[in-house]
């Protein structure tokens, strides 16, 4: 089965229905450390946007503000025209904004299938307290696992997968929530070059289906190859924003990375 056939109907994003993500004047401090200062950038719908910057520039803080793990001290995060800053992470996931973590986090003592089913977007008392894993959910999980090459392991304990496989499982599980926007925190971290190629392939295919990506990444080759837009953070503020080639040539970016 081809990739497009595998993903057909799994990521239902209607043409023109995607929403953009807007980060507006966000401040976030931890004690005396100002992790974000008037941070403003946009993540355009159906595009791959990379968020880069030196260590400590505030990338993961921005990510956590978007995904609801932190509440901004000031400013707002907008999904389309809806303010989502201050919402709980689970509520944001139900708005079809899914995320992965910098350090891979899977439920290690749960099976791969159970890992897949946890993020399913369903509410209602009957669904919550009565239904187990439904046939169509298992079928969906099987197709997504096949997409990332893990279908053999569906009934295995997730903790027995290799690190790279756990990364792929995290990606596939996030896709169970039918995300419109995916936030990937250092997806290539710790992966070998072959795995990185595979991951880039998956992201590109999903993006072609209409999934918007915001990727925090240190691997510049990976970023420049994939991203439509690049946002550069330095000391909590955006110092550059544009196409990869433009950003690469920006003196402010070179200075932030290399110093004077």
């Amino acid at each position, binding site marked *: *089965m081809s*990739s497009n056939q595998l993903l057909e109907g799994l990521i239902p994003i209607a043409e023109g229905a995607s929403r953009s993500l807007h980060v507006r004047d966000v401040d976030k401090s931890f004690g005396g450390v100002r992790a974000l200062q008037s941070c403003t950038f946009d993540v355009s719908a159906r595009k791959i946007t990379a968020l880069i910057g030196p260590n400590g520039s505030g990338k993961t803080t921005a990510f956590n503000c978007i*995904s609801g*793990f932190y509440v901004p001290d000031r400013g707002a995060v907008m999904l389309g025209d809806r303010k989502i800053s201050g919402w*709980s*992470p*689970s*509520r944001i*996931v*139900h708005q079809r904004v899914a*995320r992965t*973590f910098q350090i891979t*986090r*899977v*439920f*290690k*003592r*749960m099976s791969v299938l*159970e890992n897949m*089913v*946890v*993020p*399913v*977007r*369903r509410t209602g008392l009957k*669904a*919550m*307290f*009565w*239904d*187990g*894993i439904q046939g169509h959910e298992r079928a969906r999980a099987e197709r997504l696992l*096949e*997409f*990332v*090459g*893990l*279908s*053999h*392991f569906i009934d*295995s*304990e997730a903790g*027995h*997968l*290799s690190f790279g*496989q756990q990364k792929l499982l995290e990606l596939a*599980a*996030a896709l169970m*929530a039918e995300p419109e926007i995916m936030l990937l925190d250092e997806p290539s971290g710790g992966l070998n070059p*072959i795995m990185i*190629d*595979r*991951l*880039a*392939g*998956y992201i590109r*295919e999903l993006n072609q289906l209409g999934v918007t990506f915001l990727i925090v990444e240190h691997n510049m080759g990976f970023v420049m190859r994939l991203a439509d837009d690049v946002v550069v953070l330095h000391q909590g503020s955006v110092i550059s924003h544009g196409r990869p080639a433009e950003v690469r040539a920006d003196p402010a970016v070179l200075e932030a990375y290399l110093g004077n």
Partner: protein
Amino acid sequence: MSARRVLAIAWPVLPLVILVALPFNGLNGYLLALLYYTFTYAAMSVGWNIIGGYTGYISLANLGFFGLGSYVAGLMLTHLGWPILLTSPLVGIICALVAAAIGWVALRTRGPSFVIVTLAFTFIVQFLALNLKGITGGSAGLYLPLLTMDPLLLGDLFYYYMLGVLVLAIAVAIGIRRSRFGLGLIAIREDEGKAEGSGVNTSLFKIVAFMISAWFAAVAGAIHAQYLNYVDPDLAFELIIMLYMIVMTLLGSRGTVWGPVLGAFLLFPLQESLVYWVPPAIAGEVHLALLGVVLVLVARFMPNGLLVTVQNLIGRPPPPRWEPVPVVAGEPTPARAGRDE
């Protein structure tokens, strides 16, 4: 459906039939009482396991709910004349609502902080029971009217009542384990931040788990008050009750449906039988020491509990050694690598 699958689902029917039939075969009063206590502890341990095992939050508030259930049921009986055997589900609901309020605050903490907050709740309820003398009778306690029925049948009544509560507890535990709610609870236990980031409303799930857990403790407390015809702050909030719930669950296997039942059916009869083995004068101390010894042995040699340890030894194959996913170099679409096409 294969015979093995039928057996896996239907096996509890046999012990249940035996337990239902036992009183008809001249079970003496002592054994009836022993089994009544075992059912009570088993039901409370299964209830505790929902918050302590499935969700991973070690609650000491269940003792508070046990005592609160005893008092609420006792007060309803003495002031309103409502019979405890009928009101115990309502008492459970009242205590579950209290658990929702307590959980809303307490479940914002984790680990040792949660343990301390829940212990504080138990002490506060005990303190109130001791000091609101006009309502609770203070340290003198509440004397409850005796049930008006044949004393020979009373033992059977409590036996069957608690057996019913235990069956309900097990059914609820199985239902939760199979539901999306249960999956969410286990996800919380494994990694709460990840669960929240996966769309699990962790605050709501934890509070509901806490409420269900409290319901079983409160119902057991209510029935026990009627069983003793008496409630006082020492009996209703005796720390050993909480210790039993935890040790029984850990011994059997925390986070499993049957572990707490197994732990209760092993530990309670064992500690009761101590009176035959050791001089009565020191039996009380020895049974406390036994709990400590069991706890240490479980922590040292069977951290997963008896059930999981035995399952690992006899039932389950060792974890598979994964072959690397095959990748064809130069494949045009990397996404296809490793698929079983």
